[in-house]
């Protein structure tokens, strides 16, 4: 009887959830159709103007309210103290105390945060370069090979998986059985013990666990690098390759002096894109230990400080730091692109 009632509740819950979804979709569709109907009422010169406003207006309004305004509030919040994050948010009337740059000072005076910065540096340096290197290597190796599409899908697939899922997959590879004499059921420790060495608690101890988690991000991002670079390699004009061949260039030299320079801008784009994704990724650390084992990164501390330790001012300061770190990478990217174009 208990089971039946649970099933009924679940079924009712599901129906009401789906109802909410249909309602949401209907509201969004009505907005969409409403805009179009409204815009079609006007003709001629005036119509042109009304249509421009009706088409662009909703997006601009939405972005302003849900993206720009909150961003400004976050920047403001970073200069106030207070325990709960809603003290200064949502209204311009502030009940927290203005503390100047105190929250930013906390960035290096709070115990544990200097290590977070150090870990973040490891992530942002290692992930882009290694993921790009693996992606480029693989793209070059399988180019024109039989079954290229299938071979690509193998490397590419981790990108479809959530970072939480990927972390679980790898936690199992890293799994450590502390009980001496018992079987190691994690793949890596099984190999290590077969080779006669002691098993390692990969995700349990700092600073090693940071590198174990970095490997997961590389595993995810290599497929992205491979896809973009493979497209770039295929876009190199055949004449360039033929000319180099006539000059007797081949093998690694061909790669170093012909292929690599030709895809230079794509390589930079891939490096910078992965660097940005890495700076913002919090899921891997969160799903592994929550950052409690000396393996935290900035994006994870943003969440921890804002919600877990209830220091929203510090959380806001960390968000600003992430923003400031991302910005130069993108500016560099755009400048680089301009130079090439």
């Amino acid at each position: 009887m208990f089971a039946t009632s649970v099933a009924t509740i679940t079924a009712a819950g599901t129906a009401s959830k789906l109802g909410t979804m249909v309602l949401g979709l209907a509201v969004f569709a009505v907005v969409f159709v409403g805009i179009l109907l409204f815009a079609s009422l006007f003709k001629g010169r005036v119509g042109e103007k009304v249509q421009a406003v009706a088409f662009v207006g909703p997006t601009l309004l939405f972005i302003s309210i849900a993206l720009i305004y909150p961003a400004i509030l976050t920047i403001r919040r970073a200069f106030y103290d207070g325990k709960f994050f809603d003290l200064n948010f949502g209204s311009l009337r502030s009940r927290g105390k203005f503390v100047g740059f105190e929250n930013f000072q906390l960035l290096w005076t709070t115990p544990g945060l200097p290590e977070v910065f150090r870990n973040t540096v490891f992530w942002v340096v290692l992930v882009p370069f290694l993921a790009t290197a693996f992606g480029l290597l693989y793209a070059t190796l399988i180019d024109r090979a039989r079954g290229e599409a299938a071979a690509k899908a193998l490397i590419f697939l981790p990108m479809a998986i959530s970072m939480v899922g990927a972390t679980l997959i790898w936690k199992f590879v890293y799994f450590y059985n502390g009980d001496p004499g018992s079987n190691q059921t994690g793949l890596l420790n099984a190999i290590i013990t077969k080779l006669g060495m002691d098993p390692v608690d990969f995700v349990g101890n700092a600073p090693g666990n940071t590198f174990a988690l970095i490997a997961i991000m590389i595993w995810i991002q290599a497929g992205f690098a491979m896809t973009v670079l493979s497209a770039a390699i295929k876009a190199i004009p055949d004449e360039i390759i033929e000319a180099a061949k006539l000059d007797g260039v081949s093998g690694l030299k061909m790669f170093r002096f012909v292929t690599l320079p030709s895809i230079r801008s794509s390589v930079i784009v891939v490096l910078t894109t992965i660097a940005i994704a890495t700076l913002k990724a919090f899921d891997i650390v969160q799903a592994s230990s929550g950052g409690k084992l000396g393996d935290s990164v900035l994006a994870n501390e943003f969440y921890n400080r804002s919600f877990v330790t209830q220091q929203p001012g510090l959380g806001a300061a960390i968000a600003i730091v992430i923003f400031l770190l991302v910005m130069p990478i993108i500016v560099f990217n755009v400048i680089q692109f301009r130079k090439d174009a």
Partner: protein
Amino acid sequence: MSTATPPPVSAAVAGVAVGEAAREDALPRKKRRRGSAAGNAAKSVTSPWASVIAIVMALAWTTPTFGLLVTSFRNQADIQETGWWQALSTPFTLSNYSAVLSGAEGQPPLTDFIVNSFVIAIPAVMLPLFLASLAAYAFAWIDFPFRNLLFVAVFALQIVPLQIALLPLVTMYQNIGIGGTYWSLWLSHSAFALPLAVFLLHNFMKEIPASLLEAARVDGAGHVRIFFQVLLPLITPALASFGIFQFLWVWNDLLVAITMLGGNAGNGSNAPLTMVLNNISGTLGNRWYLLSAAAFISIAVPVVVFLSLQRYFVRGLLAGGTKG
């Protein structure tokens, strides 16, 4: 892009890459298959080694997933005693899947959260598609003051990491009474997606020959009719590729969900699968018979979407844009 998913190509390639993608599609299939002379030349010398390295890499990239997949079909006792590579000597079972789906070890049944993930993802894909297709059309084909300036502004917003907008949004939603609801998730995901969506769809719309639109205008069609009858059918592939991007992104998201729902992934909550997975990864410790099955249930949908629509996904990736 928190989210494993679409680590999006930077904005910079976009202009070029869209053209490339279009050209690549235009080429007859036979010609494309020839591949590039560059790869060929590099390989001809290092060939045996090349194959070995490629195979080793492919194995290294697939083995972890395969190992957990095998594990999800083994009995609890077997998982604890032997590695998955010895699975052939032990029986296989579906009990792990039925256990997580109906709720085991004090966990809420996973079926609820599968529904949540769909209910969150579908409207969160449709709303930005609706809004962005309109805005992209105006930016591409209607002349109005400050058009370029506004477009660059929207484009530039892609660099804003979502972390910086997230906290105030939570309070704003609470103030208008939709805190912790699906609406808060739909609106947040849409807001974070719009800059990329507008940029991506604009690039595709610009590719459409102006003569087509001129012809429609001469026939007396207004912007609304042109949008519906001329442009929408032509940019369906672009809509599809952005839609897939956004679906995978929302489905795989953890940060927005955990923030908006205040970390509540309990029974009857609106939490998506990723949040439950994150929770049990901590609470279930090393009970791999549950973790492995739960992981594969959450992975199944994006992988199927991805494999069946890979062509659109890659096109979207190459057409690029960064995502908060």
